[in-house]
């Protein structure tokens, strides 16, 4: 290939990798003037990926420019190791002042005493959407500022939907199976749907049939409810109707299924997948979505009448408890957070990165309200289910995945696998 052509191709690939959402770059929000006593450094661990990190860095730079004398040490942490790193650093006194914590970690950290109680230090709690706010609340106090929220949604390829005879995303799982089987060719790796062996993706198959995973009472005690006829029905529907007809039969490659699902979807060989807003920017770089309007985002299909659900995820900004010992530093940290998590900043991140805001006022912003992708995700969030908050709620997925995979591989029936999960969870939650 001639050098010039190769260079052009490389350049186009690089350009194509930039999220297509960042079309006209919006302006950075203004920093509110404020007098801060504190002089020194604020440390901030951010678990975002590179292109997201860069945008938050811009916001931080705007704030530090307006507040000379304070520097922010903004470091990128790998999401996979951040929780363990924080758990090691916090007791040792070396945890960062601010952490972008997954909602699954927040209550655990709060229960261990690592986080500053923000209930009385922040005044605009009403502006936050209820479900994300609940993920930062434990035993009546709030320990984090919700930053982004997300949920798994059904993302579909419009052209393949049309080929299957649908003009919109399927509303029920049965509809997805019926339509998908008309175009699926498992030998040729053309699928109507792609499933994962990860239990996070299995959750909708309990909720869409009217089941629940577990319930947390006011006093923190947990009732495990996953082992129910609804879950059994949902799991059996997955195994009997979806797998092997419109999606690959189990077992598929569980270790690499996320990557394979994304690759296939981007290449235009999978009609629908379940995935969250975090992957949309990457999907749009695929050849099937060169025209962004080919990507349809819809709520997870219903199982039985009116029932659906999708796991709400997201991240909160949490403050290290030791920051509370220094009132000047605390004021500076809260001021920084009120800027980078303020209405305008959330609207800014929504426009540049497609992240869903957690503030009601951010959704009222003109540009955000006009964005069709954000509106589509808004519809997904309406039907999303809150995972009940508990310090051990992140740890429930390991046994859940283990027995779910045993069920997929045919080693256990749905009844046996769900009973085993129930036993493990009862031990985990201390029942």
């Amino acid at each position, binding site marked *: 290939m001639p050098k010039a052509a190769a260079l052009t191709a490389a350049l186009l690939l690089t350009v194509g990798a930039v999220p297509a959402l960042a079309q006209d770059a919006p302006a950075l929000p203004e920093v509110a003037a404020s007098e801060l006593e504190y002089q020194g450094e604020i440390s901030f661990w951010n678990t975002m990926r590179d292109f997201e990190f860069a945008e938050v860095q811009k916001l931080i730079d705007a704030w530090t420019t307006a507040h000379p004398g304070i520097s922010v040490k903004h470091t990128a942490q790998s999401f996979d190791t951040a929780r*363990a790193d924080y*758990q090691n650093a*916090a*007791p040792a*006194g070396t945890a960062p002042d601010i952490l972008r914590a997954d909602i699954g970690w927040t209550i655990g950290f709060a*229960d*261990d*005493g*690592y986080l500053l109680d923000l209930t009385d230090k922040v005044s605009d709690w009403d502006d936050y959407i209820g479900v994300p706010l609940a993920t930062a609340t434990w035993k009546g106090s709030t320990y984090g500022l919700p930053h982004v929220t997300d949920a798994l949604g059904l993302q579909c390829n419009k052209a393949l939907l049309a080929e299957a005879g649908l003009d919109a995303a399927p509303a029920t799982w049965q509809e997805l199976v019926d339509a998908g089987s008309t175009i699926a060719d498992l*030998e040729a*790796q053309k699928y109507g749907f792609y499933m994962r*062996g990860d239990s996070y993706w299995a959750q909708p198959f309990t909720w869409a049939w009217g089941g629940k995973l577990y319930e947390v009472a006011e006093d923190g005690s947990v009732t495990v409810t996953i082992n129910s006829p609804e879950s059994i029905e949902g799991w059996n529907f997955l195994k009997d109707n979806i797998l092997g007809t419109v999606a*690959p039969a189990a*077992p*598929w*490659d*569980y*270790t*690499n*299924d996320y990557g*394979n699902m994304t*690759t*296939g979807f981007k290449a235009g060989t999978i009609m629908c997948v379940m995935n969250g807003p975090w992957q949309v920017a990457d999907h749009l770089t695929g050849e099937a979505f060169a025209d962004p309007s080919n990507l349809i985002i819809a709520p997870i299909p219903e199982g039985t009448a009116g029932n659906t659900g999708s796991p709400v995820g997201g991240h909160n900004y949490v403050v290290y*408890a030791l920051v509370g010992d220094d009132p000047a530093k605390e004021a500076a940290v809260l001021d920084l957070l009120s800027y980078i998590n303020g209405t305008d900043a959330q609207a800014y991140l929504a426009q540049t990165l497609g992240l869903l805001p957690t503030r009601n006022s951010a959704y009222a912003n003109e540009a955000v309200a006009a964005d069709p992708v954000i509106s589509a995700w808004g519809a997904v969030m309406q039907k999303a289910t809150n995972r009940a908050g508990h*310090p051990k709620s992140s*740890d429930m997925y*390991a046994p859940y*995945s*283990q*027995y779910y*995979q*045993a069920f*997929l*591989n045919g*080693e256990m029936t749905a009844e046996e696998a769900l009973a085993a999960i129930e036993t493990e969870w009862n031990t985990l939650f201390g029942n």
Partner: protein
Amino acid sequence: MRSRSWVAWVFMAPTLIAMALIVFLPLVQAFVWTLTDIDRSNMGTRFKEASWTFTGLDNYVTALQDPDFQHAFVWTIVWTLVNVFFHFTLGLLLAVILNQKLRGRTGFRLMLLVPWAIPIYISAIGWSFIFNGEFGLLNNFTALFGIGRIAWYSEFPWYYVAPIIVNVWAGVPFMMVALLGGLQGIPQDQYEAARVDGASRWQSFWNITIPGLRSVSTMVILLGIIWTFNLFAVIFFTTRGGPAGKTNILVTFAYQVFNEGELALAATFGVIIFSILIVFSLFYRRLAPERA
């Protein structure tokens, strides 16, 4: 003599102190932890009071009775034996071939060192592209032979076979190099004497080469067994211990338990693994004595 022995202690003191702090103290602490129910939420930090209690040998009972532990134990033994067997036999084969005067044998020796030189987790990730169940290289070949796509990391029995292939590929060079060195230490006149006596090549191999390699083999097999028993990287970066925890070896299982915050149980696993290897090493020295 006696008046000089205190000097020796003075010189050893810094090392002993460092080892005590870095190795022995944590070892003793981990052992103490195995007798308690300590986990992340009751271990006691500056923020929260400790609330763990002594529970005696409960952790050992729990661990040894856990079916996942038993499965991991059996699989670890199988994993170790199969890997070391192939490492040794293939290493010996390659060493014997490369010990002969071949053209370009230095080039072959260097090339064969590459799998060992590459950091193991990178090899494991690279092999994942070959073993990928949907788009992997190997599945392109199975299609040619009329077998459908195989989910190498999730289908029985391939999820046992795939990490073994990766580890054998990565570990043979070490054995090859060690045995090559051993081969070069065998006196050539023994072979000449054997040829004069009319011994066949197989006989001279069996009666001269193998005994001549005994001390090197003993050492290298012991190292191989201990390393493979504790080899975290290959299992973790290929099958991640899945599916459903079936390919967990003891160390990856201990890591999983540790990550769930169960510090006491994870420490118990560590002590059990440590004990197994110590006992094994002691017996091994008896079973495979050095050449008289």
